């Protein structure tokens, strides 16, 4: 393979390039001292920072609603949530909170539908470790839904609305079970 001058030249240049690479990596290797850390990409940190900022914003926006909810004025909380939903359409947090309140008010099917919309927008609410997780509450509603909506759907197999309600319950069950999403 390395028979002539040109081969030897290429080999030398290859060795030079690899040495230069090793020196460069060695010079910029992180050694625990951030003063020498490259001011280059740390996308992971940026992503995490953006996520924490979003969580903080959600808390700021929705804490007044949650405070009213905890005080027992569920309908009042719902009115204020409607207002926020108009200002921030498509925000998953509105749907999730609405689902929670509707469940407390006894509107199970509407609660399930609202949770489904919220989770389709953001799966954070079903994650075990996420700061936004509402997994326990969603699991509780899903278990109730399987029992109550399930038995009504079974007793009325031709009822299209119950079939849709059951489809929503099945979706929540599937998301709670896990998988690649």
């Amino acid at each position, binding site marked *: 393979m390395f028979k002539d001058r040109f081969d030897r030249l290429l080999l030398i240049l290859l060795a030079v390039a690899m040495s230069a690479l090793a020196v460069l990596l060695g010079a910029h290797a992180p050694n625990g001292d951030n003063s020498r850390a490259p001011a280059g990409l740390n996308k992971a940190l940026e992503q995490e920072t953006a996520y924490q900022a979003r969580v903080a914003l959600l808390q700021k926006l929705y804490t007044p609603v949650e405070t009213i909810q905890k005080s027992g004025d569920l309908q009042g909380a719902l009115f204020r949530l409607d207002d926020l939903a108009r200002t921030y359409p498509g925000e998953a947090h509105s749907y999730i909170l609405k689902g929670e309140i509707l469940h407390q008010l006894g509107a199970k099917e509407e609660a399930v539908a609202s949770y489904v919309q919220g989770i389709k927008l953001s799966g954070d609410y079903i994650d075990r*470790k996420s700061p936004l997780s509402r997994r326990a509450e969603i699991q509780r509603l899903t278990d109730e839904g399987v029992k109550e909506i399930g038995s009504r759907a079974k007793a009325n197999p031709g009822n299209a609305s119950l079939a849709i309600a059951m489809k929503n319950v099945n979706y929540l069950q599937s998301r709670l079970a896990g*998988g690649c999403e």
Partner: protein
Amino acid sequence: MNLRDRHLWIVVITGALLGTLGVLLAVWGNPENSGICVSCFIENSAGALGFHDNPRMQYLRPELIGFVLGAVLSAVAGREFRSRGGSAPLPRLVSGIFLIVGCAVFIGCPIKLFLRLTAGDLTAAAGVIGLVAGVWAGLRGLANGVELGVHKQDQGGSGLLVPIFFALLLLFLLFRPGFVLSSGKGSAAQYAPWAIALSAGLLLGALAQRSRFCVTGSIRDALLMGLRSYMLWGFMAFCGAAVMWNIGSGRFHFGLFGQPGAHLEHLWSFLGMGLVGWISVMIGGCPFRQLIKSGEGDADAGLVVLGMFIGGALVQAWGITATAAGVPIYGKVAVLVGFIFILTTSLLCRERTA
């Protein structure tokens, strides 16, 4: 079938280990029913490399790295590493893309298909029928002269590039540079400890290289040779081990509803896996087998692997991937485009007898 043939037992052991580790990796932290899923792992790894921006699907899966490097080590040890390639490079690249499209619409590769089925997930049944149908269609194509061409020994060492790429990924895994992303939430945040995952990948990669194990290959051989096929026995060992471990670990939930990572659009499960089966036969192996072959120096398989990475990025970035809510319109379109691709390729790459 010769019971004294060592190769038979290597195939059976590979299958059994694949089924065992396929379940155990989920027990140890991987997502439910996704202890091993080549397509999901590729989507996660593509995300980790910044190829897409789904923050829930970004993690450099050590198993993937292990499969290729395990195959490299086994091939080198067995003097089977040979740089080869050069047959229909672009169709193979595009095939890799559509392999992932088909898997994304089903939500899982052929390995995950059977891991789901052996966990009692009846929604996988349509995928199984689709996969078998796709393999059958691929065999009909082969029988009628469809062929992408034979690769030749390559003196340029192009077969080294993909193993080097995965060696680079190993360095990324070990040293975690800032540009490699890692989800803090979602399914990509669920993983087995990296050392265990990497070890499992290396072991399976090595065994799969030795045994030539392939899920679609098993189906293909079963259709052609019946019970005489060693691969079929390996496949049965895979399914048997997976069922056993699923039941033993309490992960067996029989039914259609409430299954993890599953949707109820059975037609699209059928078509997605049908596409995967057909392409797999045409290019000589399922996604897992392509990884192993790329580790042996097969540059053609290497191109498929690169195509799969591109596919992994696209299915996330373009909203092609299915979810528990169902298959999005883009996913359906992508599968149909995949069928158009395979049919066109079959027409153009066919040796017709006079």
